[in-house]
């Protein structure tokens, strides 16, 4: 390599100062744009996927129960977009904002629910049979998640009691055990060990027979989207949301209190009853208040999620601190 001495460089070969500075500024600008774009893309890639707003099929013959029945609240409903893009459904994702995108391909036809155990007439129901079992009612319920947020959701469904009456529980039946579909091909996050699969839940028989407890098949007048528990799920509005098991395939009447998923996961944090109770805190956080989705601040949590008048009698004489 020939290294020219300064004196040997012709003055015409020297880049003039202005060009040099321009080039340097250009390079700096390019570096700035390229790196900030890369950082921005990295940040975006870690963001949850954009919301999914795919409508379901309209439910025909929707019945509105008389307001006097006290089934529906007249509070402002949470938007369809928020109800369908903020979901705890660990079978698809542990990211509440990621469930919608990851569950869109979930096939729910055909679908069967086996009702069995301590009953006189056990039966495997096709979904269509369940839809015709009782009138499809709109029930606008408060929904309180154990994590401290809440929604107001216009469910469509029918009382669980209607189904239970059909199968005729025997005198030995004291509890109802529910089970979600277990199929890691269709519910990919079941391949991880974040929970014990399949998801199981349970109610005492008298809780299950309560008119507020419904099997929901839709919301906002349309069939349930996958992320909200399609095609059929339990809704027990006076209990924390995780009791309302999604995508149910099995309902079994039993004598002994059945195991429940979150109770298995952390027995001291999630009890069998898990009634909404502002006076009994979760060991790691307060349950005294909640954030209603759509609001920034927090509002007080109501006893039995505001359904105390209807359900408190189920628990007379029970210490709700012990039976949390």
């Amino acid at each position, binding site marked *: 390599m020939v290294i020219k001495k300064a004196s040997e460089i012709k003055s015409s070969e020297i880049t003039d100062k202005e060009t040099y500075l321009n080039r340097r500024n250009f390079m700096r600008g390019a570096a700035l744009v390229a790196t900030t774009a890369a950082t921005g893309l990295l*940040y975006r890639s870690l963001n949850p996927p954009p919301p999914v707003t795919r409508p379901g099929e309209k439910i025909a013959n929707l019945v509105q129960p008389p307001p006097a029945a006290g089934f529906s609240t007249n509070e402002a409903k949470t938007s369809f977009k928020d109800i369908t893009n903020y979901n705890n459904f660990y079978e698809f994702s542990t990211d509440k904002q990621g469930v919608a995108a990851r569950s869109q391909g979930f096939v729910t036809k055909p679908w069967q629910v086996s009702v069995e155990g301590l009953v006189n007439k056990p039966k495997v129901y096709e979904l269509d049979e369940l839809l015709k079992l009782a009138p499809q009612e709109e029930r606008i319920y408060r929904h309180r998640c154990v994590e401290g947020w809440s929604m107001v959701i216009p469910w469509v469904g029918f009382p669980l009691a209607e189904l239970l009456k059909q199968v005729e529980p025997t005198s030995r039946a004291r509890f109802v055990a529910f089970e979600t579909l277990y199929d890691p091909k269709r519910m990919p996050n079941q391949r991880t060990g974040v929970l014990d699969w399949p998801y199981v839940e349970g109610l005492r028989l008298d809780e299950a027979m309560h008119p507020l407890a419904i099997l929901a098949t839709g919301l906002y007048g349309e069939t349930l989207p996958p992320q909200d528990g399609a095609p059929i799920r339990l809704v027990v509005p006076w209990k924390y949301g995780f009791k309302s098991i999604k995508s149910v395939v099995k309902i079994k009447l039993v004598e002994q209190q059945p195991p429940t998923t979150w109770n298995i996961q*952390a027995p001291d944090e999630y009890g069998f009853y898990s009634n909404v109770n502002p006076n009994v805190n979760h060991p*790691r*956080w307060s349950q005294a208040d909640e954030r209603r989705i759509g609001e*920034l601040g*927090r509002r007080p949590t109501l006893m039995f999620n505001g359904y105390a008048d209807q359900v408190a009698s189920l628990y007379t004489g029970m210490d709700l601190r012990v039976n949390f």
Partner: protein
Amino acid sequence: MKDTRFSKVLLFINSLVPLALLLWDAYHGRLGANPAEFATRTTGMLTLIFITLTLAVTPVRKLTGWNFLGKFRRMIGLYAFFYGFLHLMTYIWFDRSFKIQTVPGDIVQRPFIAIGMTSFFLMIPLAITSTNKMIKRLGGKRWNRLHKLVYLTGIGGVLHYYMLVKSDTRLPIAFAFILALLLGYRIYAANQTPKVPARSPVPRQ
């Protein structure tokens, strides 16, 4: 890396990009159903990322010999403090509605809040003594000893994250693993050369 000044400008602006996008999304209502929770989670995550980065500077510098990296450590650390402050503000605003008197009760109720807050407060003396003047006033040795507090902030921050998740502990465990590597390296290095005098906070060229 002769152009240190410009590199610092690059780092400064890039570190602001997540905040800019967060504010942009908030303005356009694109933070999802629970914007308060999203902002809290994102600023918390950014704090942990910057703490991890600032703890990575020295090991990476020593292993690769890229001594210029040391020049960026202060800014990365200050960004960890900055995002930690924003994270604390999301809690004070969205969770406590600025009712500061409810904070002590909440700390008793939720130990992970106490640990997170302690981890943040440990960064305050580090931020205050981050100027050249303060380094001189304290002297390199004492300054170094004081700034070892960031190890506690790192451990506390990861613990805070681990304690608040419900069952999916994969991310907090990933942070814990990286943190263990970075702190483990320091223990290893200290045992390799036991009699090296305290490093100057401003790395040699």
